[in-house]
């Protein structure tokens, strides 16, 4: 009986209206230190006004939270705001009637929304072919080059000028190996860093139609001579023990932090982790390139995630979402977020603010990612937008591993990525054309 009363009380307490405050559900994938960051953002916003209450809910990593949102949407109880990783962008854009463009949410609520305030490579990534900005850039990172300076000194390599090009990287790796280093070079997120960002950095298409930005009928062209040359180069480095493969996704992050690997290509958002865990002097450099390629270096491509507004909610709730996004757009807030997490400042104003505060001088290397991004983008470098991209990234992992293991030539592997990837693109195009 006691239990029954208790549960009755609980049920009535839960069903009470939240005192005229409109709740905004925000599903995200930020764990650990970044999870605390998201909680602080919500608390700060909730403390500054009384009408709305943002409730952040951790729903697992990116693919888990997206799967959860899909299930919730089908059941009719999707959250108001969903954090979606860059890989899911095409899927979100193609799902008609699922999302409300962020530009519309802001305008409807009476805020002025200026997409040109954003860093071009960031805004472009989330802008539909008709010029409408679809989602709100939240946490963006890009690919940078990490160097263990202590290991460089031990191998007698100059530390005042980091390797800028792939031949210089190979040379440094050879010196490190000659000095007894077990893992001279590694890379995280091989699909993102060695194919996607590599392509835009060299102003070369990864896929036709401006890497899919201009339409769903884009097809992969990642078996071009330049791509074959690069993967062949890395494959040879792997056979010589200069490049040591440390696994898919972010697995290569830990071996760099522990000092096991001396050079690494990884996300700029690895900064917080490296700064906290590395017991050595480190430096951040720009992504290496091939100096004989005209147009290189162009700009690198972003990773990370953006916030999508789900459809089917009440007008008042959309006002709350707009108020929250307006709060997030404040350059001061953005600069603070950039300094705290290592994610890119997504607007030019917040970048200038950070620069003026002297942060980049005190923390050398933190501006590398920004400088790689704040350039005028080209049709080939604006971003990547491909359907079924989760599968395609997986195909890239599978095929590249065959090259690192010496089982397949670079050409065969890249041909296979193109063939298998295009099957996915065709399937996506077919599934999304009708409806």
């Amino acid at each position: 009986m006691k239990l029954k009363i208790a549960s009755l009380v609980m049920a009535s307490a839960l069903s009470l209206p939240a005192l005229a405050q409109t709740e905004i559900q925000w599903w995200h994938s930020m764990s650990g230190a970044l999870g605390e960051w998201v909680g602080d953002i919500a608390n700060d916003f909730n403390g500054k006004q009384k009408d709305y209450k943002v409730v952040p809910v951790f729903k697992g990593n990116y693919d888990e939270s997206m799967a959860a949102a899909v299930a919730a949407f089908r059941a009719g109880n999707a959250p108001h705001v969903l954090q979606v990783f860059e890989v899911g962008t095409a899927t979100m854009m193609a799902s008609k009637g699922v999302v409300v463009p962020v530009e519309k949410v802001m305008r409807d609520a009476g805020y002025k929304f200026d997409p040109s305030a954003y860093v071009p490579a960031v805004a472009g990534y989330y802008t539909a072919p008709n010029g409408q900005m679809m989602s709100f850039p939240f946490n963006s990172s890009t690919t940078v080059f990490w160097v263990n300076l202590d290991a460089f000194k031990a191998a007698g390599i100059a530390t005042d000028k980091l390797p800028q090009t792939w031949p210089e990287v190979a040379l440094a790796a050879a010196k490190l190996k000659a000095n007894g280093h077990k893992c001279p070079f590694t890379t995280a997120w091989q699909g993102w860093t060695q194919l996607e960002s590599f392509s835009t950095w060299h102003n070369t298409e990864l896929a036709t139609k401006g890497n899919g930005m201009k339409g769903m009928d884009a097809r992969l062209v990642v078996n071009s001579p330049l791509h074959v040359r690069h993967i062949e180069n890395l494959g040879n480095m792997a056979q010589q023990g200069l490049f040591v493969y440390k696994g898919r996704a972010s697995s290569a992050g830990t071996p760099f932090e522990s000092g096991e690997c001396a050079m690494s290509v990884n996300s700029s958002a690895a900064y917080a982790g490296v700064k906290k865990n590395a017991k050595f002097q480190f430096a951040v450099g720009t992504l290496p390139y091939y100096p004989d390629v005209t147009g290189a270096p162009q700009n690198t491509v972003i990773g990370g995630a953006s916030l999508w507004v789900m459809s089917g909610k009440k007008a008042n709730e959309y006002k709350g979402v707009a108020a929250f996004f307006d709060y997030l757009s404040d350059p001061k807030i953005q600069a603070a977020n950039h300094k705290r997490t290592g994610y890119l400042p997504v607007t030019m104003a917040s970048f200038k603010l950070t620069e003026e505060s002297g942060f980049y001088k005190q923390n050398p290397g933190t501006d590398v990612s920004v400088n790689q991004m704040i350039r005028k983008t080209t049709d080939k470098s604006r971003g990547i937008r491909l359907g079924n991209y989760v599968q395609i990234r997986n195909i890239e992992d599978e095929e590249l591993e065959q090259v690192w293991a010496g089982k397949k030539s670079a050409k065969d592997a890249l041909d296979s990525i193109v063939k298998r990837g295009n099957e996915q693109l065709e399937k996506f195009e077919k599934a999304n054309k009708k409806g």
Partner: protein
Amino acid sequence: MQKQTVFNAKWLPWALIAPQACVILVFFFWPAAQALVQSFQQSDAFGTSVEWVGLDNFKALWADESYLASFRTTAIFSALVAGIGIGVSLMLAFFADRVRHGAWAYRTLLVMPYAVAPAVAGVLWLFLFSPSVGLVAYVLARVGLEWNALLNSHHAMALIVITAVWKQVSYNFLFFLAGFQSIPKSLIEAAAIDGAGVWRRFWTIQLPLLTPTTFFLLVVNTVYAFFDTFGIVDATTKGGPGKDTAILVYKLYFDGFKALDLGGSAAQSVVLMTIVVVLTVVQFRYIERKVHY
């Protein structure tokens, strides 16, 4: 005088199986029917546009070389998991049955892994075998074996087989132990008096009498290897290197829950279900003949 109680009510047997039937209906038949329906559809992730595509999803699977290769991988994996799992647990049960002191402790320890979730088991073994920090990898390197499950297919396969077997050994062990203990002592004693040693008694008396248990476990372990192991693969190899440990159920899980391709994933689940039904029928028709009840 009749000792057995006879229930004459016609409804009683139905009422007694009703709870179980409901559970099976809701948690098996209904989702299975859903999967069957979805396998003939193609839709975007959020299900806003659903289109009937007939057999397109199945045709796409047959056209996919990597899917066909996955059958071979799955066959090898399942045979290894069922074979090694049954062999090891039979051995453990044999010895545990003979232990006189502290039998309870041994049994509890042997049963414990069954309570561990597949993903946790995967992470546990991944750490043990991790080339840079793993204990097992360290020992292997000391004896001259350069362990690298990231690029060596055999190593990766060994890793998921060991993890899957480790998790299932407890279950098998329990059944074998019960099996050993249900063998009448008189048979063993009679054989011992006739001069049969431990091994002779095992091969000619205990093992033949355990064939029903072994057969049951063969079916259960095959189903386990086919269906229940995606968590292990996801936590350890993610199907790599290449596609060399991408067993059917992992590809299904990946396509459905990570890549949100529900139609393709549903088609795969129908194929997988068919395979397991056929396998089970074959096992009952042909292998069961060799079973002594």
